[in-house]
């Protein structure tokens, strides 16, 4: 008897049409944690009218769902970003520049997702991304967490796939981080310890006539947060002053609105290969953040604080956030 190991694989491919599964994954990645799973939502049948005996359950809806975390591999990350954000562009010539922006519309062509846990493969057709989060900590590899919703599922034979290579992949390098308070003097921070950027689309699967599932136009939410360290050159303190007085370096009265700023985070792919990178920006003053003044403590150590906020749609329309991915994928996803 051979024990089944917990090793998991996530495979993804863009479908050529809704309702038709792709044959094999375009990209396949080792899974750090999580899985895809079939879901059946059930409810009790009405009881028998005369005896009040229970008659069992019926299936209300059946769909696939799952939350998977992998490393942010340079090539498949673009497909995930497109499916989460909705609009993409490509230009340049090796490395190719892929730009992703937020759109009201989900991509018309969803994903087929394969999920391997141990020796068991399942395939999920017509899969949409409900949430995509990129998380980075200084010096560590960038991770991407994806929440999926699928219309249909089933066990599957092992597809034909090639795992993404373990290296190179994006590593968070704090020194290339730039954050701006809403001040006359933008603050460039070199002491950002960690970042989290999230697109939360919150789609809703609905079942119409004859139980054919449809997907409702999703929400359009972008969140960004980071952990900073206060230092003696006002980095960080500016954010605090701005948040509570409306200006940096002055008293002023509290602003009724939130303080706004922008973020511009670059992840290097490899120290020797800076041309291949991942950049996440929040445009202009569209990042509305909150933070608390840190506690003093008798123990030695540095002052850290968490800066958390939402990115809002610009007044004139357009995107809340832009992602620029430079990799070796020639064409649009």
């Amino acid at each position, binding site marked *: 008897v051979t024990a089944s190991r917990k090793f998991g694989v996530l495979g993804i491919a863009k479908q050529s049409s809704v309702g038709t599964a792709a044959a094999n994954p375009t990209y396949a990645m080792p899974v750090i944690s999580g899985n895809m799973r079939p879901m059946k939502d059930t409810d009790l049948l009405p009881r028998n009218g005369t005896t009040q005996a229970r008659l069992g359950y019926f299936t209300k809806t059946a769909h696939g769902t799952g939350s998977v975390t992998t490393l942010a591999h340079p090539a498949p990350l673009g497909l995930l970003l497109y499916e989460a954000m909705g609009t*993409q562009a*490509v*230009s*340049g010539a090796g490395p190719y520049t892929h730009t992703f922006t*937020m*759109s009201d*519309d989900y991509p018309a062509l969803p994903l087929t997702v394969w999920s391997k846990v141990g020796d068991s493969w399942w395939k999920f057709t017509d899969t949409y991304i409900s949430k995509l989060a990129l998380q980075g900590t200084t010096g560590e590899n960038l991770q991407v967490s994806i929440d999926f919703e699928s219309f249909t599922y089933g066990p599957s034979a092992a597809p034909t796939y090639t795992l993404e290579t373990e290296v190179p992949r994006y590593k968070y390098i704090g020194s290339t981080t730039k954050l701006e308070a809403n001040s006359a003097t933008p603050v460039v921070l070199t002491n950002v310890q960690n970042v989290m950027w999230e697109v939360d689309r919150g789609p809703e699967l609905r079942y119409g006539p004859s139980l054919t599932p449809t997907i409702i136009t999703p929400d359009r939410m972008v969140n960004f947060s980071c952990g900073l360290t206060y230092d003696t050159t006002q980095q960080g303190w500016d954010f605090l002053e701005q948040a509570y007085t409306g200006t940096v370096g002055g008293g002023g009265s509290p602003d009724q609105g939130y303080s706004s700023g922008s973020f511009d985070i670059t992840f290097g792919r490899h120290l020797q290969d800076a041309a291949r990178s991942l950049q996440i920006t929040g445009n202009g003053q569209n990042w509305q953040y909150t933070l608390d003044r840190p506690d003093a403590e008798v123990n030695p150590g540095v002052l850290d604080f968490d800066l958390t906020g939402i990115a809002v749609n610009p007044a004139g329309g*357009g995107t809340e956030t832009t992602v620029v991915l430079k990799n070796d994928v020639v064409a649009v996803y």
Partner: protein
Amino acid sequence: MADDDTKASDEADATTKKKSYKLPKGTYVGTYNSQEITFDVPASGTISTDDAGVQHIIESSWLGFTGEGS
């Protein structure tokens, strides 16, 4: 006048007015009416189109385009 005709007709049937945008050169992909639409922007950086889908993609999601004209 074509403009007058457009205004008089129902919006859903109206002919989309031609508009120009400035965008970085490249190939773009987006979705309109559940259809995936791909279009190219030439090296000049200017795209002039009466395609409602292309206009929707640019206006709803693209940052950095400048100028709208007919």
